[in-house]
């Protein structure tokens, strides 16, 4: 998806925020003893408030109540949905929009209920539901995706609020599809996202080509011998355009560092520490510090680097505690 397509897609999905999934509807059956008993048995909840009419009558409440967590169950449809399918609603349409755009993956991430009032035998539970919010695009462990949340609101026959339920779902591009979706040319689709590579032009291609072969080079002015990094076409000291290079031993020292926490970018492995490293040759290089806990990295730390294969497409210098 390019930026414009993503914008259009987000405009589309965000238009679902606030849409009604179902109007306020009564459950088919009033709150009743047999359903409470089935539910309590299935959950393994032996609370006599849900199962023993005599105990319940003598209790502070004076009557049997339904477990608050059953709130959502009263309005659930069973066999008809399985047999005939669900009537399309705003939620199913939204899911379809995600699927059409490659966000096939579905993961229910959490349910959050709030309770305001208890219901007892004979009460009727009403439910209404809206699409409450959709997150910005997130890079999750499962892949790139969006969280959407529905908000169901429950009330009784008097219109008194009983509670709410928020259900959060991640719709994501499963990793194999993700690489295909981001591949803009006819390259074979990658299985796994890789690190973002440097573009290679006249002034830096030689450096990255050497890195691919396991070497870190430092550009050197042929005229005045000044080392320079990052590479540039002219020597700032003597204006010579003649240059060669030396190979770094990759012995170095941490001048500064930062541990990247947020955002986490697909293709990168976390924890991830970047450092400005003073090489023994005298030039500075930014690279990753690996091989120790991020908390152990400190200014002045001595390092030894080596060029390693990071992923299918990436060779980079990585520095270890010396």
């Amino acid at each position: 998806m390019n930026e414009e397509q993503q914008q259009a897609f987000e405009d589309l999905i965000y238009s679902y925020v606030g849409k009604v999934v179902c109007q306020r509807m009564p459950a088919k059956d009033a709150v009743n003893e047999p359903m409470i008993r089935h539910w309590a048995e299935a959950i393994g909840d032996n609370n006599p408030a849900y199962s023993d009419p005599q105990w319940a009558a003598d209790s502070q409440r004076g009557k049997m109540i339904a477990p608050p967590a059953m709130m959502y169950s009263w309005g659930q449809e069973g066999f008809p949905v399985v047999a005939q399918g669900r009537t399309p609603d705003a939620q199913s349409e939204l899911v379809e929009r995600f699927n059409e755009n490659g966000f096939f993956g579905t993961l229910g991430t959490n349910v959050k209920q709030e309770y305001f009032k208890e219901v007892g035998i004979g009460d009727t539970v009403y439910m209404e539901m809206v699409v409450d919010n959709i997150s910005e695009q997130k890079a999750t462990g499962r892949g790139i995706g969006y969280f959407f949340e529905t908000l169901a609101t429950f009330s009784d026959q008097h219109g008194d609020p009983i509670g709410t339920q928020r259900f959060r779902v991640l719709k994501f591009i499963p990793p194999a599809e993700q690489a295909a979706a981001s591949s803009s040319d006819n390259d074979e689709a990658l299985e796994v996202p890789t690190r973002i590579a440097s573009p290679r032009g006249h002034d830096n291609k030689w450096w990255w080509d050497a890195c691919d072969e396991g070497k870190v080079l430092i550009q050197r002015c042929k005229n005045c011998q000044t080392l320079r990094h990052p590479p540039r076409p002219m020597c700032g000291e003597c204006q010579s355009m003649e240059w060669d290079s030396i190979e770094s031993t990759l012995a170095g020292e941490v001048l500064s560092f930062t541990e990247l926490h947020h955002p986490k970018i697909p293709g990168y492995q976390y924890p991830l520490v970047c450092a400005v490293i003073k090489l023994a040759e005298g030039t500075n290089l930014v690279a990753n510090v690996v091989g120790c806990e991020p908390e152990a990295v400190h200014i002045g730390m001595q390092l030894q680097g080596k060029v390693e294969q990071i992923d299918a497409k990436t060779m980079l210098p990585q520095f270890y505690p010396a």
Partner: protein
Amino acid sequence: MVANIKDKAVIVGVGNTEFSKNSGVSELSLAVQAIKTALDDAGLTPADVDGMATFTMDTSDEIEVARALGVGNMSFYGRAHYGGGAATSTLHQATMAVATGMAETVVCYRALNGRSGHRFSGGVSGDITTADAIHWGWYMPYGLLTPASWVGMFTQRWMHNTGIGKDALYEVAKSARDYGANNPAAFFHGQTFDRAEYDAQRMISTPLQLFDCCQESDGGSAVIVTTPERARDLKQPGVAIRGVAQCAAKDQEQMTSFYRDEFAAIPEMEIAASDAYAQSGLTAADIDAAVIYDAFSPIVLWQLEAWGFCGAGESGDFVKDGALRRDGRLPTNTHGGQLSEAYIHGVNGIVEATRLVRGTSVNQPDKTVNHALVTSGVGIPTGGAVLGKLDL
């Protein structure tokens, strides 16, 4: 040589759009709304405008802005590069045009859907091969590709060198938030935080946590600059540009100047400060209040040192003594800053600095503000401007 520009250009109108996380309109729409508000503030019409200055990053072309607004013929249009480093460079452009007679009335503007559109926190990527993209290529493969990560790298070393700790960063963020909480236009209006809440925010890139980082905002800001003669006939008291400077210092990279002998430093801002003071004939002692670019909390501290409000390494104690507060030595970011009002790339800061000199900030200090400083971003070629009452 000191540039001869003192009091030759005057801010006569300022305007902001509403700030939000989802404007629902184009960046062009935000730009023209902000400019129209600034023209109304000045008592001018679009037909009075004959020049424009904005950022190279701005997506609203001058001629599109002109057609939408109804501006006629223009004799000047200049842009400044380097992201937030261009904030006061728009004034720099406008001042040069007005002082030389290239234009009489120049609009400086910046408008962005920084939250609902392109977000800087998403970082850079390497799709096009330019010198700039090759520059980012030295950092992207390692994951160092967001503004917070670049500033985190400088901050870690600066804290190590100076011994200044998070309590100073907290005071920068907290004072901005307290101002913003009292500013109805600020995104964080009515919402302050305490130390425990600050400490509890998630880490973004060490040592920067969420409240050390500015917002991403949708909105626009505009500033109208004209000649002192014209300014005296207009609605608002004129706010003169006493000095305005920009600087790209030796061995500068865009946000990644990691190759200097001591890279935890901002020589470009020190040089711009010295130039702006020289133009104005003023010193830090003459500055009564400030709007200091605050994309991240630590960069305010570095700039306080660069502009000479305290010595090198003393900014921590300076802010902890309450200097940034309304009754302090240098009330700073009284609109809430970009940390708490909105991130309009520093141009909302020029609006606020103008209001401070007019005496109309929502958090106006009790003392008289004859001179206010406003600065541009840090880590890039940058600059700042010293503003003062036109007829003091």
